[in-house]
Every structure is written in C-alpha cells, then in structure tokens.
C-alpha cells in the first residue's frame, strides 16, 4: 500500500517473491491495479488520498475483534499511558484536536498525566477511559465500514478481506510488514498515513521482529544516505537538529534537544545528544575552533520559519534569490507546480546546474513558453561524474551502507561532486580571507584535509576513504574510555565511545562503527547468513552498529525474554548475553527495560504528540478533492498545513470540487524511467520501451469522454496541462464515493520537453536517438505540502481529460 514495488523497486520484489514461495500472502491496495497487484493474493482499490480512512477502519477492526498482541501492546507501547483529561479529539471538536490556533497546534493538552515524581501514570488493564488505548478506540470508533467505504470507494467486502488477512499477524509468532513509498508520503497528511500503519504494527506486535517493520521504499537509491547526512533544512547529520536563532549557546542547544524522562527503566538513548553534537562540530572544525565557537558557526533557522523546497521556490518566485545551485536534480520537472518553478528560475541572476545529462532545468530559459531575450539568468552547467565513475557509498532502504568502487573514469571534464565542491570551497575560502564578510570563520576555519596535501596547503584530490573515516570519527587526543586507552588519531570503534568534551570527532554519530581500525565495514561482502532469518550481517554494514533489525528488544517476551517467534528469533538470551542480531540496548530478560530506546519513555507511540497535526491520524481530504464535505468531520483539509494559495499568486490556485476539473489524478512511475527522466530519457533502449507520456484511465471514463485507446489527449489542472497518449484500461475502475461516481486517472512523472522532437534544437544541442514526447507531470500538481515535512501533495489533485482539439 502506498507503493508499487514490482514496478518501481523490482529488486525488493525478488524478496517478496521468495516470501510468497514460503507461504506469505501479498496484499496490494492501490487506486490502480498495478504490476504488484498482478501478483497479489488480495487486491483492493481505494481513492487517492483516503489511506487514513482505510487504515483507521483496520484499527477499529483490530480493536473490535480483540486482535492486538496484548502483552506487546501493554509493555512495549504507550497504550496504557494516561492522557491529559483536557485533550480533545476531532469526533467531539469539529474535526480538529484541542489547541488549534491560526493553523498551528498548541500541544499542551496532548500530554500525559504524571505522578508526583513525574512518572507517567499508566493503566495496565487498558480500561480507563483516559488511557491511550481507550482514546484510540473512541477515536477510531468513527471509522466504521460504512463510512470508510463511502470515503475510500473500496467495497465493504474488499475492506474486510484485507483487514481479516492482515490482522492475522497479530497472533504471537506471526509477522507482517508494510512496504510503502511516495504513495503515502506525498500527501498533506503524508506523515499521518505512515503513522497509522506504524500504530497498526505496534498493535499487532510487528515492530522489531523478523518479517515485521514499517519499511520505507526510498524514492532514490541514496536518499537514505542523503537524509542520514542531513540534506534537509531542519536536521544536521545523524538527525541532530539544526540550531534555531533563539539558542545562542551550545549548552542551550543541547539542553533543548536532549530529551529527558522520568521513566525509571527507560534507556532514553538520545540523552547522549551532547556527545554527538560536540563530535560533529569537531568533524567540521577540528581543533581550529572551540566547541562554543564551532557551534556559533553552524547555520541557524529563524524561529517559526520553514526553509523547505516549497518555501525556497515560493521565495524564488518572489525574486528573493540572486543565485541557485541546482545540484543533481531537475526542479523544472520535479518541483510541484512546474510552471511556478520554471517562472521562479527566471528571476535569478545566476544558476549553477550540476548534472550528468542535459535537463529541463539547465535549459529552463528556452523551454516552452519562455522568451530567452527577456530572461537575465546566467546558467553555468557543470558536468559531474555518474555513480560508477567515482568511489563511495550508498545507503539503502534497509540502512545498509554499501561501498561502491570506481569502474570507469568520468568522460571529458566531468568531475565527482566532491571535487567540484572542493574547488568551490577553496575559492570561497580565499574570497572570505581576502574580503572578510559576515561569519567568515564558518568557512575559513573549516578543516578540509580529505586527501593528499599539496605544498600550497590544499588537497590535490579528494579521497573518499578519508571522508568516510571522518564520518566515522577519531579520537583527537589520547583518551581512556570504559577502561581502555585510545591513542590520538585512532578511529572511534562505535558511538558508545563518543565524548561531549571535544576529545572525539564524528561526522555522523549513526555511522560511527562503519570505518574503524578493522577497516571499511561498508566494503565487506560476506555472503554467509548466520542468523537464518536473512540478516546477512557480514554483507556491507548498516547503522546503527550493524544492527539489522532495530528495536529488536521488542522481539522477545518482556518477562521471560523468550522470542515471540521461536522459529525466526532475532535475538536470544544464552544465559549471559543476547546472541543473534546486535541487541538494541536490550537489558537482561525480565529487567523491564522498554525496548524503543530512542524514545524518551522507551515505548512505541500509539499516541504521538510529536506530530504537527495530531497525536492520532485523522482522515482529511486532499487540498484538491472531488467531495464537497469530509464525511468524517466538518474539517475538510488538514488544518496544520502551510497554505501558499491564500496569499499566494496566480500559480498557486487550487480547484477543489470544481466542475472544470472533475477527476482525481495521481502521479506514479514506471520501471523503465527514473525520476524526471533526465538519466533515462536519453537512454535509447529505455526510451524505446516507454517513449511517450501517457494517462491511464478507466474504460468507463474513456467512454464518457469519447476517448480511444492510444489517442492523444490533454490532461489539465488549474495550474497547467500536458499532452499525452491515453491508455484505456480496466485496471482503473470508477469509484463510488458516497453514492456518486468519481473517476480517477494517473500519469507518470518521468517526462520533460528536452528530449522531445517538438522542441527547437540549435547548433551544438545533442538530439536523442529515440525521441520521447510529453512534458512534466508536475505542471499539474499543487503547491502544497505535508504538515510535518512539507513534501508536496503529488498523489491526489483534480484534473480534466479531453481529446486533443476539443
């Protein structure tokens, strides 16, 4: 659900196939019957944007039928926790939680009741009306089969079939997993989609066990790596927080972000926060600055402001940016509302476009509808090396850091990104040294000894091994830790040894243990599986400390310490220690230490007050939806999202329940193309297989619009349109939503004008061997994002489809 692994993560499907050979059942829930559905035991259709309704119904089914893994829920989740009696839920509060003020939640009522010592009050019988479990039951009592079916369009019998099959995994010793991807994340309720499933997994005892988990199929082969190393504005490497302007000192910063708990047995691993922030500062500045000075050099966020992709392009559209580094991306096709994104780029003075192939972004100024004579942006296109033309690592959906060697040299002037950044760094440093500037030391004091040093004090080239070692971390002085002496310059064996006093460095505490005195763990290729459950612990390295299944303390009984699943144990107590996978901070059997050690209270969150839009997921309609009212409550759309359309411009228009745009549209992928197609549309073999942008629609809709299979049609939203080929198929069927027929269509987002025959080619342009047709799907998508992450809602918006020339 929320993914189509057979098409888009085909290697993962190899393991799904094996699991099915071993008797596992595959359930596919998707608005469209996909290649994954074609192999599934059960398929159920649902309207895009209604996943919380669907899953909320499953939660009700679990609770009504007593299918929870009871001991797990009682000991390993916050189900027994008593909640503040002032906390109000959407069912009794006009569709919102208590504390909503001007589009933001004051979360003070989303708290737990504590005793005199600050320990959370609990009801282990799960009967008290104010305990999380009973509040959960009350909240989802509204998600009955009837209303869920009317919202999702899924027939009741299909809902039941899915619920019945999946909830079998609540039985002790059974497990189920979810593979989700952008089908869940790219919604204004994206994070809550995932939360609902995480709660289901906790209720069924499926976290921390073999065959369980909530598995994100990442959208790109190294996006896990890039989020781990903090590509996003709100985090620093290792998921530390980016400091805010209101935290002037390192102590204030550490204090704010180091969670505290009064739960007596909770390990609360993030209590070590200060060790990781200190080590990170050392990794950036070495001994060139004190920890306090180094903290002062870190970039800050203004309190209350967000700097997401949507914010960046919104500001760029207003002309607030002079320059833009577009690095390894194609925003002209990948950003929500491509017309807005492309127009935004015309406001820049300069752009540096680093990519492997020619793209719509580097050429935005001569794209369709652009007049180059009126655009002042100077574009510098820098060719960079592809992944096989340089050495380094990639981190996958399983957190495995896998080292890749360099197979061939990059062509022509192309250089690895790291080399380009190195050149930029030295030039910028030089300018700061000569001319000064605000916070110049943030650059001039930075260490950059990641390669053989030349006589001029600059490295001659980048050595990725040295970067990997920096990420792992070093002892910067002789130090005795846990009774052992580590000499200055030794690689730190694991994050357990990192210090908060500046005596250690680590570019990312999660990766501390990946490159040690034993060598490059990520380059290991051991094929033996000692675990018998497919851990393959000697193949590459995964964080943290090569623990393959995190929270594996939840895989055993809290009293006896015996594995729930005797045939597929993750860890086992051998009398004196835990064997199997690397135990996740698990204390001796029966010691009572709750297993979710990264949570302050040590238990999984059924009640999740950390989210911006509510501690329980609630169904809200997408920003653009086909229904006038949300059947679940008077609140139509997620109240906590940042709206760009209210004080926005023309390009931010939305059209909901608008007869001009009556069909639900979603975007997705095909096996043959990758992301915006920059890498794949230029490959003749791939373009030959999928040459044209298309729209898939039901036979019924095609009949309604007089559209024939293979005919060229226009798909349009209020923000833009694309010309595509119509694929008329029975794999889409009209939905019955609250008694009305609602049609849904879908389009792939891989296409762009640069490889089409229609564009104007000038001398020097490379022409593709096989032309594609069609421009970006994102020309249609809305400029709106999730309440927590601001990921754009590309999976549910409203369009119309017309025959060309109508």
């Amino acid at each position, binding site marked *: 659900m929320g993914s189509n692994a*057979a*098409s888009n993560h*085909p*290697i993962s*499907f*190899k393991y799904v*196939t*094996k699991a099915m050979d071993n008797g596992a059942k595959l359930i596919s829930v998707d608005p469209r*019957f996909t*290649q*994954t*559905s*074609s*192999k599934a035991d059960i*398929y159920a259709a649902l309207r895009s944007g209604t996943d919380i309704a669907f899953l909320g119904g499953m939660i009700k089914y679990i609770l009504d039928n007593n299918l929870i893994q009871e001991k797990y829920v009682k000991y390993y989740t916050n189900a027994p926790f008593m909640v503040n009696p002032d906390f109000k839920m959407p069912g009794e509060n006009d569709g919102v939680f208590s504390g909503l003020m001007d589009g933001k939640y004051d979360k003070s009522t989303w708290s737990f009741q504590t005793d005199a010592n600050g320990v959370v009050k609990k009801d282990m019988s799960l009967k008290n009306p104010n305990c999380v479990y009973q509040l959960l039951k009350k909240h989802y009592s509204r998600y009955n089969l009837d209303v869920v079916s009317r919202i999702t369009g899924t027939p009741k019998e299909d809902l039941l079939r899915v619920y019945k099959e999946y909830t079998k995994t609540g039985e002790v010793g059974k497990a189920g997993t979810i593979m989700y991807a952008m089908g869940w994340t790219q919604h204004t309720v994206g994070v809550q989609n995932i939360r609902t499933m995480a709660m289901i997994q906790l209720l069924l005892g499926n976290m921390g066990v073999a065959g369980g988990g909530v598995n994100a199929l990442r959208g790109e082969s190294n996006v896990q790596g890039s989020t781990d190393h903090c590509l996003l504005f709100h985090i620093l490497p290792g998921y530390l927080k980016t400091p805010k302007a209101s935290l002037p000192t390192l102590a204030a910063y550490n204090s704010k972000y180091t969670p505290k708990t009064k739960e007596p047995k909770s390990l609360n691993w993030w209590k070590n926060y200060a060790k990781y922030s200190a080590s990170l500062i050392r990794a950036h500045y070495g001994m060139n600055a004190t920890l306090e000075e180094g903290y002062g050099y870190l970039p800050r966020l203004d309190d209350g402001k967000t700097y997401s992709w949507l914010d960046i392009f919104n500001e760029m559209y207003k002309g607030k940016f002079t320059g833009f580094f577009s690095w390894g991306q194609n925003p002209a096709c990948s950003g929500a509302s491509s017309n807005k994104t492309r127009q935004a780029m015309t406001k820049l003075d300069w752009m540096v476009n680093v990519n492997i192939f020619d793209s719509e972004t580097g050429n935005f100024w001569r794209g369709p509808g652009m007049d180059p004579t009126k655009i002042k942006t100077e574009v510098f296109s820098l060719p960079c090396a592809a992944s096989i033309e340089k050495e380094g690592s990639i981190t996958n959906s399983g957190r495995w850091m896998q080292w890749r060697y360099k197979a061939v040299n990059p062509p022509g002037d192309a250089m690895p990104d790291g080399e380009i950044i190195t050149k930029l760094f030295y030039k910028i440093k030089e300018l700061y040294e000569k001319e000064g500037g605000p916070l110049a030391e943030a650059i001039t004091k930075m260490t950059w000894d990641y390669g053989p040093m030349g006589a001029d004090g600059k490295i001659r080239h980048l050595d990725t091994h040295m970067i990997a070692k920096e990420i792992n971390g070093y002892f910067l002085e002789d130090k005795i830790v846990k009774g052992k002496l580590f000499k200055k310059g030794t690689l730190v064996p694991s994050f357990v040894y990192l210090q908060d006093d500046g005596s250690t460095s680590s570019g990312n505490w999660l990766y501390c243990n990946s490159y040690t005195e034993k060598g490059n763990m990520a380059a290991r290729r051991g094929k033996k599986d000692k675990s018998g459950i497919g851990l393959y612990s000697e193949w590459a390295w995964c964080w943290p400390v090569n623990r393959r299944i995190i929270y594996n303390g939840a895989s055993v009984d809290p009293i006896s310490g015996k594995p729930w699943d005797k045939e597929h144990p993750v860890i086992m107590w051998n009398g004196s220690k835990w064997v199997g996978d690397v135990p996740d901070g698990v204390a001796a059997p029966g010691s009572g230490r709750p297993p979710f050690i990264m949570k302050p209270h040590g238990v999984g969150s059924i009640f999740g007050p950390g989210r911006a839009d509510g501690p329980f997921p609630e169904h809200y309609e997408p920003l653009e939806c086909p229904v006038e009212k949300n059947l679940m409550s008077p609140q139509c759309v997620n109240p906590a999202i940042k709206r760009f359309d209210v004080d926005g411009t023309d390009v931010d228009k939305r059209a909901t329940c608008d007869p001009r745009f009556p069909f639900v549209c979603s975007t997705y992928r*095909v*096996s*043959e193309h990758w992301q915006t197609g920059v890498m794949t549309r230029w490959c*003749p*073999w*791939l*373009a*030959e*297989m*999928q*040459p*044209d942008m*298309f729209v898939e629609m039901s036979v019924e809709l095609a009949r309604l619009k007089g559209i*024939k*299979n*293979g*005919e060229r049609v226009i798909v349009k939203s209020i923000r833009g349109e694309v010309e595509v*080929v*119509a*694929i*008329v*198929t*029975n*794999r889409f069927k009209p939905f019955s939503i609250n008694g009305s027929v609602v049609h849904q269509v879908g389009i792939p987002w891989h296409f762009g004008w640069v490889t089409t025959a229609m564009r104007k080619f000038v001398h020097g342009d490379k022409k593709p*061997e*096989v*032309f594609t*047709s069609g421009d970006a799907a994102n020309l249609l998508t809305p400029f709106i994002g999730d309440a927590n992450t601001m990921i754009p809602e590309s999976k549910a918006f409203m369009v119309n489809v017309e025959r060309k020339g109508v």
Partner: protein
Amino acid sequence: MTEKVKLYDLSKCTGCRACQLACKQWNQLPAKQTHNMGTYQNPPDLQPNTWNLIRFQEVSDGNGGVKWMFRHDACMHCTDAACVRVCPSGALSHTKYGTVAFDQAKCIGCKECISACPFEVPRYDPEKDKIAKCDMCFSRIDNGLEPACVKACPTGALRFGDKDEMLELAYKRAKELGGDASVYGDKFVGGTHMIYVLPEKAGVYDRLPENPRVPLSIIAWKDWLKPLSLLAAGGVLAGSLFHYIIHGPKDTGGDDDQASQEGGK
C-alpha cells in the same frame, strides 16, 4: 553435452522488462523510434533488433476484476526446429545444448524460416537482408554463464539450467499453482528449450499457439517431396545414364550421309 533449458515462470513475471533490455545490451542491438499505442508493450512486436519482447495483456478475471499478464516472447529453441529444416544455407543450426543458433554471415535473406516458424519468431531486416532472433546467448552459455535475460531477471521468473532439472522445477511449480496451470513446450516440436510455466490455459495468451507444429507443408516438402524429388532427380539422372549406356547417343547418322552424298552433285 547436456541439453539446456531456459525456464520461464509466468506466475513470477512482473513485466519489469529487465530481460528485454539485458538482451539488447548484451547483443548490442540498436533501439528504434517507437510510439505508445495505448499499452506499455514496446516495441509493438519482435523485430530484427528486438529479440525478446514482453507482451502485456489484460483479461477479465470473471469476477468483475482484472488480470494483467506478461509474457516473455522469444525463440522457443525447438528440438524439431522448422527453421533449421528449411534454412537453405545452414545459417540456422542446432548447438550441442539443443538451442538453435544463428550465423548471420550465412543468412541469405530468403525468409523461409519466417514462414516455417510455428511461433512466428524470426524477423527480417530489409537493410541487412538477413533475419534475426534470440540465440539463447550462445556466447554466454558456452562459457558457463546464463543468458543475459536470465541474469537480469529480479524475481527468478527466468531460470536456466540442465533440461531435466528445469523440467522437474517446471512441473513442480505447475502443480503448486494448481487450477489451469501447465508446463508448455516439452510436448511440442520434439520439445522446446524455452519452457513456460503457464498459470492459465495456453489459449488465453495472445499470440501463443495452443498446438505448435512444424507446418505440414514443410514436412510434406522436406520429409516427403524433397526426398522424392531428389529420388526423382536421381532417377532422371540414373535413367539417362542407363539409356546412354544401353542405347548409346542419339543416332543421326543417316541424315549426315545423305547430306554428304547430296553435297557431291
């Protein structure tokens, strides 16, 4: 040499087309301009530059739902290969693995194989005046490797190995699937070296012959008429020889004497 079989289990195929592309890459086959005709299937058919093609097919499941089926279509590598029988130049021949190899240099572009093949596999390239088809990666299998398509397949729908082992797997899988599932290929044309496990009856699949046979015309020509004609040709030659021996060359002596006699007047 042991016979090899490429086993293709349709029940595991997800239509990802890694095999279609791996074949192009290994054999360095060019891509041509295509257009989406309302399906993922592209190129639309096997071509001289497309030696395996995933066919996409949607059928109703009888319950208001849909089935989406994918079929890896390529040379079946028949034991009793009609193409080998008809090929006048020996461009098509059997290898020690039982597969049908193709030597492009020998092909004269007569297209007899195209008419002969019960699976409609070989394709003619007018620019080169030659045909082309899958050769089951002879260069790879002869070096202990599996065909490129098999190597690329992520789900294990494609497998490669000794004939007996592959057939055993095929029957085991068909039994596991139950219903209409069957093994396809071992009972036709002397047994094919690409074997299918079909979850549905053969007749359900697009362009898949239910009862593929070497065409009667070829059996008639090659097995009966051609030997007969050779026999006949041989008979004519033998007859002429005997006639010459028995009767000598044609007697035109009388006319010559007359002419010389008349010439003397």
